[in-house]
């Protein structure tokens, strides 16, 4: 593996460990409110948000584990989520890429 790629992997590893910095930002994101936040804003919840909003139960909602309450616990869950994301994204595309370029020498 060439040097540039090795350095990029190292940089990605550092970023992965530093993700809890992203938890320090508190505040809302436009259009990503939960049903309760919408109720606070409008006094009601649009029917579609109410019915479709919980159509999918993600296994690790909001990059957090049940019971993670302190910052340290949330930070660990966030790092673990980042690791899961990195491993699956990189692993999947590496396999796809290898398959697509099989037999190519460049």
């Amino acid at each position, binding site marked *: 593996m060439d040097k540039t790629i090795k350095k990029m992997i190292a940089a990605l590893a550092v970023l992965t460990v530093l993700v809890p910095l992203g938890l320090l930002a*508190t505040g809302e994101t436009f259009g990503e409110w939960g049903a309760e936040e919408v109720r606070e804003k409008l006094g009601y919840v649009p029917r579609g948000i109410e019915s479709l909003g919980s159509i999918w139960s993600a296994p690790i909602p909001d990059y957090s584990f049940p019971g993670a309450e302190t910052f340290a616990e949330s930070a660990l869950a966030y790092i673990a989520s980042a690791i899961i994301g990195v491993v699956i994204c990189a692993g999947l595309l590496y396999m796809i890429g290898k398959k697509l370029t099989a037999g190519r020498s460049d």
Partner: protein
Amino acid sequence: MHIPDGYLGPYTIVATWLIMIPIWVYSARRLGRELRSRQVPLLALSAAFSFVIMMFNVPIPGGSTGHAVGGAIIGIVLGPWAAVISISVALVLQALMFGDGGITAIAANCFNMAVLMPFSAYYVYKIVSGNSEVTSGRRTIAAAIAGYVSLTLAAAMTGFMFGIQPLLHKDAAGYPLYMPYGLNVALPAMIIEHVFGFSFLEAIVTALIFAYVQKADPSLLSHGRPSRA
């Protein structure tokens, strides 16, 4: 910028899936034809990088938080078709595993962040770069501008998708069924927080990585296999 479930009505959901399915199929074909074997590790890293960079929420004045996407640098270095696949994988995983972005909105979110973004970045970079050397400072600036413009466009399109919902779907009493805020609110909200905030972040991220690649291995910046038509 990850649209959740419940914010887009059926028209927009169906339309975005109908647009995205052929784009995914065609992107996969282009990737298969043009990907060089030495780009494979880079392709794998790019999706992982995009996934991680989106976890760095940053506050801006006014109480809003957001993040960079990494879509511009991926579009510039790997080409926009590869970027479609790479960023889509990250977005699909975020939706399915972490509930970040709705599953019904996967196509909409992929259109904004995995198509519009890398393509606009790629062309802005090409135009601003002109015939300059691959290692020139002009190209670094071109990458920064591409990052800034492309995230702003993706945000504007997200605002547009949000904003048309009250026009498309109301109940009998006139209440919106999905995203309640119209274009007059959603469009400026999405554009302003990016123009004055998050798009600068994308510009910096794009320029930093681009400058590193220029220095470390500029051969990575010459694009994929010439496609045989």
